[in-house]
């Protein structure tokens, strides 16, 4: 059994901004991502500004009880919300190299591994959800903004291949700021093709893939595997889109609609099957899995 299920949850939402990894999305969304909170006991809702006691947050799965705002949560925390207890088995962990020789990438990787206790921006393995066996991958924003480099691309590809081999469904929670791991350059871009092809083969095998978009799902992650689900769900108030809002604003010199690139906007425009709250997510997944048994 993994320590994940025993250790006390860590509240990433209340870290001070100095500890957070700089990332594209932080630049794009200062209001959403950088709100300071008084101390580690309290969190302030980023939408309605209500102060929430952190012990309450655990009960509500990091959703504001007042307005329903969904806080960003670490992948390991999400595992606890989604998996049947003691059923998660991780894949062989992979770590990134520095294929471009990008200055500072190795030391930043090392530091991020220590800070996040993750190998890279994905947590992936097999598990059971309401008794149904599945492959489950979760992107973690705290690792390089949840961006996809070679490790995320390879792990997801292995996930779909594992699904084909063992006739299992695949569920992926996406949540990456810039989408691409800039430091891995062209190798990062190619992971879009690699993962999209893995999904394609998986579908050819007649298997079932649920893609769940969480805040934020942008760029190369949105423009590859996460847009290719048989069913695409999203959490409320997630940022979902291809180009970052700041880029869109600078390019078009137009005022962006207030709900631009939110889950609600994507649903309205026909890009999602459903918005599902964090509280309902496990049950909805369980039902969907039960309707697609192989």
């Amino acid at each position, binding site marked *: *059994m*993994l*320590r994940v299920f*025993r250790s006390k949850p860590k509240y990433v939402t209340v870290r001070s901004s100095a500890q957070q990894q700089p990332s594209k999305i932080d*630049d794009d969304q200062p209001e959403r991502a950088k709100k300071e909170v008084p101390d580690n006991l309290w969190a302030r809702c980023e939408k309605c500004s209500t102060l929430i006691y952190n012990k309450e947050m655990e009960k509500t799965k990091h959703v504001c009880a007042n307005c329903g705002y969904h806080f960003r949560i670490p992948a390991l925390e999400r595992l606890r919300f989604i998996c049947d207890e003691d059923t998660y088995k*991780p894949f*062989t*962990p*992979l*770590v*990134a*190299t520095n*294929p*471009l020789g990008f*200055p500072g990438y190795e030391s930043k990787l090392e530091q991020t591994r220590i800070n996040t206790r993750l*190998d890279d921006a994905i947590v992936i393995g097999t598990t059971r959800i309401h008794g149904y066996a599945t492959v489950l991958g979760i992107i973690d924003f705290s690792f390089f903004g949840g961006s996809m480099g*070679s*490790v995320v*691309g*390879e792990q997801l590809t292995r996930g779909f291949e594992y699904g084909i081999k063992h006739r299992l469904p695949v569920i992926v929670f996406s949540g990456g700021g810039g989408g691409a791991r*800039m430091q*891995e*350059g*062209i*190798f990062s*871009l*190619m*992971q*879009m*093709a*690699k993962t*999209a*092809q*893995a*999904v*394609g083969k998986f579908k*050819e095998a007649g298997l079932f893939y649920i893609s769940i978009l969480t805040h934020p799902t*942008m*760029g*190369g992650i*949105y*423009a*590859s595997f996460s*847009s*290719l689900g048989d069913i695409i769900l999203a959490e409320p108030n997630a940022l979902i*889109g*291809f*180009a*970052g809002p700041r880029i*869109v604003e600078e*390019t*078009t010199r*137009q005022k*962006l*609609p207030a709900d*631009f*690139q939110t889950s609600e*906007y994507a649903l309205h*425009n026909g*890009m999602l099957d459903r918005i599902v709250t964090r509280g309902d997510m496990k049950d909805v997944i369980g039902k969907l899995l039960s309707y697609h048994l192989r």
Partner: protein
Amino acid sequence: MSTVFEWEKPLVELEDKIKELRTFITDQGIDFSQELTELEHKAERLRKEIYEKLTPWQQVMMARHPKRPTTDDYVKLVFDDFIELHGDRTYRDDQAIIGGIGVFEGEPVTIIGPQKGRDTKENIARNFGLPHPEGYRKALRLMKQAERFHRPIIALIDVVGAYPGIEAEQRGQGLVIAECIEQMSFLKVPIICIITGEGGSGGALAIGVGDRILMFEHAWYSVISPEMCANILWKDSSRASEAASLLKLTPTYLLQFGIIDDVITEPLGGAHRDHNAMGLQLKAFLRRYLTEIRKIPIDELVAQRLNRFRQIGQFQERALPNLEKDGD
């Protein structure tokens, strides 16, 4: 109007001098042929010196040269005939991507590619060659049509990125790029992708999955444009030249990395200096690689295409340390 880059100036001055001398010889009838030959040799040496040692950022600027041939120039230079086909059958015709059926050495092929404008008016009509989702939907429609009628696909790629606009987002820019990438990967026809100028991120990859991926000598291909990379790294897009070096976006690197299969050399000084020579060169490479991949049975070709991308990525396995597991 001509665009001369700073680093080209000594060469251009010398070339002007040669032109002057030629005029002088013709007008005055005095024999300066020895001097002329010397100057021409000097120009030749200088040309090599300048264009064989371009920095990555100079490469990017060459790829964006306003006189560089665009997709429809290559269509005219390389193919015997071309019938353009329009529209995505859903929303509108996006003129930032052109597509249709052309004839290459007697055989029909499907051609698709982003199209930049040559002047302001055309650039506005073509949205500066930045496609909307309907452009990619059109490309995908034409590629599927090609599969149905067993036509090889030639993708000529010159795009800085998919358009980052409000309507583009509304109509599913990310989603349609994902669909293009996925579906192109499995098409049962030979596909050749050629990055002729700019290969910017997902907007290029959307039509960049092929059996042979070739790149022009002065083209670039990366996950992000140097300007945006500099903006993210230092919040200063004027440091794009530094970012261009970090991104390793030139064909030399990409060949080393195994991302592309071959580099198509350009006339000395860049494709814009001699459109016809560039066209002939492209034609020769297309002939060679099309002949090569047509010999491969189609199922094997698709398997090879998938395997190629499956292998891309650099990472290491890490053994699980004991502290992550408990005793039982």
